[in-house]
C-alpha cells in the first residue's frame, strides 16, 4: 500500500499489504454496502442502526460468531473487536497466543491473522463491519482493516489513549491519529467515505456529558483539519434519560457550531458501559433502556449490550438477544413515548455552555494539538478515573438525586461561576454524600444500576 507517506508505516508493513489502488477498488467497487451507506439510510428512516461488540481470537470461531449474529439478530452493522495485545501494537505476542491458545485472546487479532482473512470476515456477512479496539497508535491496524475491506474504524487520539494506556504521551497518540485521519480524507477523495467513530465513552464510569463531548469534539476538529468530512460522535449512556437525550442532541448542535459546514455528523449512543446488574432480567431492562434512549435522542447508531455484561464476554446467544431486545426498544411500538421537552432543553443549554467553556480556549489556539496536550497537563481538560498518567483525573463526578451525572469536584476544569454554582446546587441534596472525602457515595453512584434491584438468589439471577 504505497501510502507510507500518509500513515508513515515501516516499509516492511507497506510491502505486506495490497496496493493503494487495489485497496480503494475493493472498498469502493465490491457492491457491498459500506458503513456510511447503512448510517445514511438509517438517518432517513429515523431508526438507529443496531450494532453489537463482538470478537474472538480464532478465525473460524470469528466467522461463526459473525454469521450467527447476522442471521439470528439482523443487526445493521457488526463489530470486529480487537484483542488487547494487538491494541497495544504487540502483534508478535498476539500471533503467539493465536498459535498456542486462541481462546485466551479477548478479541480478534486482525494484524496477526492478516488482511486476506479479514476479507473473509467482510465477505461472510450481509452487513458492514467496524473495527473496535483501544489503540493509542492504530496505524498498522488501520492499514490491515482497510485492506480487509472494513469501512468503519473507531478511535481517536484522546479517547483511545487515556482509558487504555498508562503512559503514552498525548502528543504521540494525537499525531498517530492525525495520520489515520489524513488517510480517511484521501480515501474520501477516491470516493470511499469511511465511518470514523470517536470514542466519547472514555473511562466508561460516571463520565459527565460535557467531558465526553469536549473530548470527541476536539478529536473531530483535529480530524477535519486533516480533511475528514464525516464523523460519528459516540456518547455513553449515563442513565438519566433527559440528560442523555440532551447530550445526544447537543452533538449535532456542537458540530454545527464548531466543525466545517460541510461535515456530516452521526450521533452514536453506547448503551451503558459502567457496572451492570448481575441479575440477567435487570441487565435486559438496562439494555432495553439504553436502546430506547438512543432512539429518543436521535442517535443514528446504538452500540448494544447484553445480559451477560456483568459476567464477562457474552455468549453469541446473549449477544443476539441483546440486539433483539434493542430492536424492540427502538421499534415503532414505543413511538408513543414523550419526554419532558422543557427539561431536555434546559439540560441541552447547560451542556452547550459547559462544552463551550472547555473547548473554546483551545479552539482559539493556532496549534490545537499542542493546546490539547497542554490542557490535559494543566487539568484544564480532564477525564475522571483516567488510567493514564497524562490526565490528572482531578474531576470527581457524582449523581444528583435524579440520577444525572454532575461535577462533585471540577478539578482544574475552567468552568464559569454559574456552571459551578449549578452543579453545586444540583448535588446539594445528596443526603450526607456531599463530602468529597466520603467515597462511599461515589461508589454507590458507580453501582447505580447494579444496585437498583433487590438481590435475588444466584440461581435465579444467573438464568
Amino acid at each position, binding site marked *: 500500500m504505497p501510502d507510507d507517506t500518509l500513515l508513515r508505516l515501516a516499509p516492511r508493513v507497506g510491502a505486506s499489504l495490497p496496493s493503494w489502488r487495489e485497496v480503494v477498488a475493493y472498498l469502493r467497487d465490491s457492491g457491498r454496502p459500506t458503513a456510511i451507506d447503512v448510517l445514511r439510510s438509517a438517518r432517513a428512516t429515523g431508526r438507529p442502526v443496531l450494532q453489537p461488540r463482538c470478537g474472538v481470537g480464532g478465525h473460524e470461531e470469528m466467522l461463526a460468531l459473525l454469521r450467527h449474529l447476522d442471521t439470528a439478530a439482523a443487526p445493521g452493522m457488526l463489530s470486529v473487536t480487537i484483542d488487547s495485545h494487538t491494541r497495544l501494537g504487540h502483534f508478535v505476542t498476539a500471533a503467539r497466543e493465536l498459535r498456542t491458545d486462541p481462546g485466551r485472546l479477548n478479541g480478534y487479532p486482525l494484524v496477526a491473522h492478516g488482511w486476506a482473512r479479514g476479507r473473509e470476515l467482510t465477505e461472510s456477512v450481509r452487513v458492514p463491519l467496524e473495527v473496535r479496539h483501544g489503540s493509542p497508535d492504530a496505524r498498522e491496524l488501520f492499514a490491515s482493516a482497510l485492506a480487509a475491506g472494513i469501512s468503519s474504524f473507531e478511535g481517536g487520539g484522546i479517547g483511545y489513549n487515556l482509558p487504555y494506556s*498508562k503512559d503514552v504521551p498525548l502528543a504521540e497518540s494525537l499525531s498517530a491519529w492525525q495520520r489515520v485521519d489524513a488517510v480517511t480524507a484521501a480515501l474520501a477523495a477516491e470516493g470511499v467515505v469511511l465511518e470514523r467513530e470517536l470514542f466519547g465513552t472514555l473511562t466508561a464510569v460516571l463520565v459527565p456529558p460535557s467531558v465526553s463531548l469536549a473530548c470527541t469534539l476536539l478529536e473531530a476538529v483535529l480530524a477535519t483539519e486533516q480533511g475528514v468530512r464525516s464523523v460519528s460522535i459516540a456518547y455513553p449512556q449515563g442513565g438519566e434519560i433527559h440528560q442523555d437525550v440532551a447530550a445526544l442532541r447537543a452533538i449535532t448542535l456542537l458540530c454545527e457550531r464548531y466543525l466545517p459546514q460541510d461535515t456530516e455528523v452521526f450521533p452514536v449512543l453506547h448503551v451503558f458501559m459502567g457496572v451492570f446488574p448481575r441479575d440477567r432480567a435487570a441487565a435486559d431492562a438496562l439494555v432495553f433502556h439504553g436502546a430506547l434512549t438512543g432512539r429518543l435522542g436521535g442517535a443514528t447508531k446504538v452500540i448494544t449490550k447484553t445480559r451477560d455484561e456483568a459476567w464477562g464476554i457474552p455468549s453469541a446467544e446473549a449477544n443476539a438477544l441483546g440486539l433483539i431486545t434493542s430492536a424492540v426498544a427502538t421499534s415503532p411500538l414505543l413511538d408513543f413515548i414523550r419526554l419532558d421537552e422543557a427539561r431536555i432543553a434546559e439540560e441541552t443549554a447547560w451542556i452547550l455552555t459547559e462544552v463551550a467553556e472547555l473547548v473554546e480556549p483551545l479552539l482559539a489556539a493556532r496549534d490545537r494539538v499542542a493546546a490539547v496536550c497542554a490542557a490535559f497537563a494543566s487539568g484544564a481538560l480532564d477525564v475522571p*478515573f*483516567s488510567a493514564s*498518567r497524562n490526565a490528572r483525573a482531578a474531576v470527581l463526578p457524582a449523581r444528583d438525586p435524579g440520577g444525572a451525572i454532575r461535577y462533585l469536584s471540577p478539578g482544574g476544569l475552567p468552568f464559569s461561576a454559574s456552571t459551578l454554582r449549578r452543579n453545586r446546587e444540583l448535588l446539594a441534596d445528596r443526603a450526607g454524600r456531599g463530602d*468529597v472525602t466520603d467515597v462511599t457515595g461515589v461508589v454507590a453512584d458507580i453501582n447505580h444500576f447494579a444496585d437498583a434491584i433487590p438481590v435475588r438468589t444466584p440461581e435465579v439471577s444467573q438464568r
Partner: protein
Amino acid sequence: MSHVDDRVVVLGVAESDAHAVANRLIEFQLRELGFAVVNLGVCTPLADFADAVAAHPQARAVVIGSVNGHAVADLRDLPALRGAGRLPCPVVVGGNLTIDPADRPEAKRQLLALGVDHVLDDLTELAPLLLAPPDGAQVPDEVVRA
C-alpha cells in the same frame, strides 16, 4: 487536616491489573484528607513501589489495589524485596483479591504470610487506618474490619 500535610502515601494498582477507578477514587480521597499521594497508577510492578519508597523514605504506607483476582501472584516478590531491605514501610492491600469470593480468606492468609501488613475488606477502611497515629502501634486488622 494540616497535621497530615507531611505524610506521604505511595499508591498504585498491582502489576497485572489495569483497573483505574478505585485507584483514582483513593487518590482523590487521600489528597482531600491532606496526604501527599505518589500515585504510580495501574499495572505497577512491586519493584516500582519499592523504588518510590526509596525516593520518599518518609512514606507512611504503600497502598496497593488489586481487583482482577491476582493479588497473591502480584505480591509474590514481597518477601524477597523485604529481605533485601526494601519496602520498609507498612504495605496495605485491598480490593477483589480472588476470582471467586469464596477463596478470599485463604488469599488473605497468603498475603499476610507474604508480609503484607494490612488486608482491607472495604475502601472505607483505608482512611481510618492511615489517619491512625503512626506510633500508636499498628491498628490490628480485626479492629479495622469491625
